[in-house]
């Protein structure tokens, strides 16, 4: 609309040129149309809402929700408020998204590397996996897994692939260590140790840069991340006994239960997303020029060192940006949970909407939650991407 290049300065500086006028005209037109459409929709909405006697606003969040939530990470009972139900829903979404992202990354990387394997059978099988899962809708896969879960034997006849792990129509039951404040303290010490070690290692590298003497980092890592937390654990006398699930009557007692809905959703999201991640990893590794492999080989580097220090840093530059969008996709796809009755934030918002009629507020909350999650993931991945980016002259 305007010229693509600045025009030579004209003497009539305070008079808009033809192109500026045209630009102004278009902007006023488009903004005018957008405003008119929004105003039209808004006035209709206000009229409709008053006709239905629905008051707008978020006051309903303080009311009693009265909806049951079967499977939740946080304590919840139907007498709690809508606000708390939403928080529980967000926790459920994050629970499936975070674990899904970690598992999908691991599985996808393994399959992506398998596709490049010298083993013909392995690379073919990986290709079939990727091709099949990518070309079938996720929702269909999700329903399929859910049906399979429901077709599993009842709790009394549960499958035991490994001792202590039960797979039945009640879901997957795993042995677990009960977690309370003492265990969390020890874990917190370990996390703190990681952070201190990270800073310490930076200092070590800086020292090495100065005088060229290598300084091994592993003793401090061992001390900070393993020995100190272990000592804390001993001093506090924290118990780490594993709780083994046991069948009592018709259900299991103890251990960690992954409900069939959660388990089906997790499997569907992880397998589906891993097919895309596998392709990203493959193309990332293939994008490293052959000369880099040859050069690393010529230097006589060990294979693991070569992969870690030469190939991976270069491949990651290609891998990270598309990986970010896969993580975002997985998070957004977790909203399909509503189809099988896992109560994530979308499902709870939908129930709220049906119970209260507060459609606009419920959908605004969904959008706010997902925009926040999306922006956080993008922010983190952009930070990581900037960190690993090639430092160019």
């Amino acid at each position, binding site marked *: *609309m*305007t010229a*693509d290049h600045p025009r030579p300065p004209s003497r009539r500086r305070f008079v808009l040129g033809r192109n500026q006028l045209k*630009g102004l005209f278009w*902007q006023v037109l*488009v903004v005018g149309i*957008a405003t008119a459409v929004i105003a039209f*929709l808004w006035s*209709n*909405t206000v*009229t*409709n*809402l008053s006709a239905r006697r629905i008051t707008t606003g978020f006051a309903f969040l303080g009311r009693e929700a009265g909806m049951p939530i079967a499977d939740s990470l946080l304590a919840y009972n139907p007498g709690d408020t809508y606000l708390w139900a939403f928080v529980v829903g967000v926790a459920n979404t994050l629970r499936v998204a975070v674990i899904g992202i970690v598992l999908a990354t691991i599985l996808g990387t*393994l399959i992506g*590397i398998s596709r*490049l*394997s*010298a*083993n*013909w*059978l*392995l*690379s073919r*099988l990986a290709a079939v996996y990727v*091709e*099949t899962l*990518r*070309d*079938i*809708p*996720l*929702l*269909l896969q999700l*329903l399929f897994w859910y*049906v*399979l879960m429901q*077709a599993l034997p009842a709790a009394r006849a549960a499958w035991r692939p490994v001792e202590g792990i039960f797979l039945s129509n009640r879901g997957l039951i795993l042995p677990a260590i009960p977690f309370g404040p003492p265990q969390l303290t020890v874990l917190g010490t370990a996390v703190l140790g990681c952070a201190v070690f990270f800073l310490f290692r930076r200092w070590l590298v800086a020292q090495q840069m100065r005088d060229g003497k290598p300084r091994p980092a592993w003793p401090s890592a061992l001390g900070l991340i393993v020995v100190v937390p272990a000592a804390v654990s001993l001093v506090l006398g924290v118990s780490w006994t594993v709780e083994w699930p046991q069948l009592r009557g018709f259900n299991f007692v103890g251990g960690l239960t992954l409900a069939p809905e959660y388990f089906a959703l997790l499997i569907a999201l992880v397998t589906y997303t891993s097919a895309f991640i596998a392709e990203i990893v493959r193309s990332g*590794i*293939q994008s*490293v020029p*052959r000369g880099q*492999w*040859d050069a690393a080989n010529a230097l006589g580097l060990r294979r693991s060192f070569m992969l870690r220090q030469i190939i991976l840093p270069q491949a990651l530059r290609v891998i990270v940006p598309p990986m970010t969008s896969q993580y975002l996709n997985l998070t*957004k796809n977790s*909203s*399909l949970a*509503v*189809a099988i009755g896992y109560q994530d934030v*979308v499902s709870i918002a*939908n129930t709220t*909407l049906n119970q209260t009629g507060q*459609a*606009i507020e419920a*959908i605004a909350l*969904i*959008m706010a939650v*997902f*925009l926040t999650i*999306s*922006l956080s993931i993008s922010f983190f991945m952009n930070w990581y991407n900037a960190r690993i980016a090639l430092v160019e002259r």
Partner: protein
Amino acid sequence: MTAITDIPDAPRAARRPQLGNPVLHWLRKNLFSSIPNGIISVLLLVLLAKGIFSFVQWGIANAVWLTPTNDSSACRAARGLGACWAIVPEKYRFILFGTYPFDEQWRPALSVVLFIALYYLSTRRALWRRELVYLWIGALALISVLMWGGVLGLSFVSQDRWGGLPVTLILATFGLAVGFPLGILIALGRRSKLPAIRSLSVLYVELIRGVPLVSLLFMASVMFPLFMPAGFNIDKLLRAQIAIILFAGAYLAEVIRGGLQAVPRGQYEAADALGLSYWRKHRLIILPQAIRHVIPPLVNTFIAFFKDTSLVLIIGIFDLLTTAKTAIIDPAWQQFSVEVYIFAAAIYFVFCFAMSRYSRSLEAPATPK
């Protein structure tokens, strides 16, 4: 993890003389090149053999292929041992065409054929001309006539009765046909030098891409009636279609924007030097090049959309997945959902696989072997 073939030592391998039996040579090279590789191969072969064996046993040997109409007793007898493929001939008319009047089902069937012909013609490079646009408009009009009827002696069928594969194809195709021009406008808007237009486009794209399609569909099914003047209401299918178009527009805009960025600056400058107006510059010079650059990612976006149309299940529209899910509500056949899902998955797979093959064939010339 053992070895990565990315160090292609093809030239060296080619020079190595082939000794002995070519089959043994192939096996040694591809399956048993080293000890860990050999272990992996043996493990995989055992697993594969087990998998194939149990699938053949369940899916072929013990399967029930045909039963008398509406009698699932043979299937129930074989339950747990073999698949019940008999549910497919029993229910395929419903899965494919939903509740469309039974005697008129040749019309949706013909529509599906027309859709496939339209896709096929669109893949021919020789036909990438302006006439293709007219062909699309003509074919979509013809399909509308076939589906709705009410003219030319065809009885009228309201869209509440449409279902199955034609609905999936309609949602995907109309979503793209309308979303594509919308995407072009938004992409141009995002690259515009006018701040108001640019920020509106950015806002649109980021808002739509930031939220899941499910929430847009909820919005279309629940909030749309609130947005409209009292008494004005449009059909559920059309509302879902609008949501899909808006969704497609945002994603296609980002792909097209990538193409616009790939057009060299000299092309813009040359078009300006010729004195072309903004619209003529883009229509004649920039867009044809930009779109050619992004055809493979466009096809990938199409595949994603085709799969995403299945989400309309959540708001209760009878697309292919919903009819499949509904077909097994029938108490006699309730237990055989796996077979029905495999049938539906096969249909989706054929469409998506064909598109992904096509996308790869487009990319192939760009990457010399």
